[in-house]
């Protein structure tokens, strides 16, 4: 019985699991400086609460190899005293962890209401057109992944685009997308407009 008498059940169309197993990937251990960073972070939580550092650990994995793999999950689990299933359970919940190989530049366009009112749908279309891929896809050269994201918390600077979970582009217009892509390709993070709140420029 569902919560509503008219609810349709059709596993072919609606109630489909989106779960995919992580790729095994290369053997994984943290580079010494990342392991040191994680050990330092662990001192911020009670000694018997190591798993509090899991999000930080998964970010470190991504910093090292771009996305999460089964080998990395096992390595993190070993350090934080969690089973691989527990690590995967957490990892698959959060959208900022990439569960498959992504491009060098992951372009994340905010699609939520305020950005959409300012033309975010057109920005996504323009990026999609420039890159030749649909949202959710990676281009064949492995340079770009295009993703739609939810409200980034800067709706007064809509539409907002984030790159690689970090770099911040504000007030992106569809007609600028071609140039933006070329700029990111050429200059990486330096291409970002940054956050307008940062008035001190170097």
């Amino acid at each position: 019985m569902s919560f509503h008498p008219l609810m349709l059940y059709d596993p072919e169309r609606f109630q489909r699991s989106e779960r995919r197993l992580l790729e095994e990937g290369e053997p994984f251990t943290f580079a010494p400086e990342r392991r040191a960073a994680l050990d330092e972070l662990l001192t911020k939580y009670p000694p018997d609460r190591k798993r509090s550092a899991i999000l930080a650990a998964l970010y470190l994995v991504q910093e090292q190899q771009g996305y999460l793999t089964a080998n990395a999950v096992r390595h993190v689990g070993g350090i934080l005293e969690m089973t691989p299933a527990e690590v995967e359970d957490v990892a698959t919940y959060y959208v900022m962890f990439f569960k498959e190989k992504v491009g060098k530049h992951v372009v994340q366009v905010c699609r939520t209401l305020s950005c959409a009112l300012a033309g975010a749908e057109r920005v996504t279309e323009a990026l999609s057109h420039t890159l030749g891929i649909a949202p959710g896809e990676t281009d064949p050269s492995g340079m770009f992944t295009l993703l739609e994201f939810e409200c980034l918390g800067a709706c007064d600077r809509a539409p907002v685009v984030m790159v690689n979970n970090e770099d911040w582009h504000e007030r992106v217009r569809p007609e600028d997308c071609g140039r933006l892509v070329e700029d990111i390709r050429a200059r990486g993070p330096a291409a970002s407009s940054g956050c307008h709140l940062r008035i001190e420029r170097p």
Partner: protein
Amino acid sequence: MEPVLTRYIREPNSYTLDFFLKHDGYNGLKAALGMEPNAVIDLVKASGLRGRGGAGFPTGLKWQFVLKDTPLPKYICCNADESEPGTFKDHVLMERNPHLLFEGCLIGCRAIGAKVAYIYIRGEFFHVQKVLEAELAKAYAQGYVGKNIMGTGFDCDIVIHRGAGAYEAGEETALIESLEGKRAQPRIKPPFPAVSGLYNCPTAVNNVETLCNLPSILLNGAEWFTSLGPEKNGGPKLFCVSGHVKKPGTYEASMSTTLHELIYGHAGGIRDGHQLKAIIPGGSSVPILLPHELEIPASFDAVAQVGSMLGSAGIIVMDETTCMVWAARNLLYFYKHESCGKCTPCREGGDWLHRILTKIENGEGEMRDIDLLTSIGSNIAGKTLCAFGDAAATPALTTVKHFRPEFEAHVREGRCTVPADWRAARTPVAH
């Protein structure tokens, strides 16, 4: 009203410790450290400060509920997840005035007897986090955080914890779960965090803006704070105005300011050549208000009286080019995507609402689908562990309530009847 929280944000280097110390920085904390913890709680209660995260619950009362008589450690969790669509005020405070937040956290810790405050910041605010981390290091180095703060013998640590992209992590018990290294899913309440929160210890979860109000309350007193706004809605308030206005932005004002004044005064009014159609006054989770309903104070109580909520004070403004079926579908995509999946009505209902809205927007809907939206929405709201369910049902319920003819026109004409040049050319799909 003279800005209190954002007074200096446009000045260069306002985020630095040096600047902060020149402008009363950490003096509120100094005052708090000279008082008994209970006296701090009483002062905050007298100020009537209400939580700025969405619910408007009195902060002093929340602290009073925190279990004191226990050997367990106590915690402050600062909610810096700011992910309610249309909300971007904590962003401004943390980027431009991080020490104000640190000071607020420390005052909170002093009041409830905590030795650690965790600031849970959303993963997308990495550029903000870098500012916080650099400034926190300075505050530690100069003895404003850490051991023996300002030579008073008070020890307190602040830890910045990065989230990883989950709206539900803003719900207080889900935030605690996430801090414990689990999926951000809400807990059954009671017990409330004040009794059993982080690591099953007494915990107060407070929003960034709430904590940022504390230093000025300690410096200027409760009476000053209440005098800044209408009864029970005192203090300065940040309002985020976005959407079809000329000057979207964060504006600090008294809660006696009207919604009309915020939209037409502060935010410069509607784009040229367009008319206001509807606003969402408190972040995407609250019911719509219509143009004739804006002559009310933007306070928790006044907005509730007309059937909506001030929520996170994220005012989203839509002009006549906005299709309400499209807007509801946009938001339902958000809610179905962000549902944590724990409660059936929210997990299944949100997805279902989105499918029906997509169908109607594409011109494939039937008249009975419109009633179905209401029926599904009312079977989600109030039937979930946390307020996410109500939030997810609201965009569907409120748009059908106020704009039913627009839904019917979509069904009758078999197409979207309010096209706009800023929307995508592609038709939405319901996956």
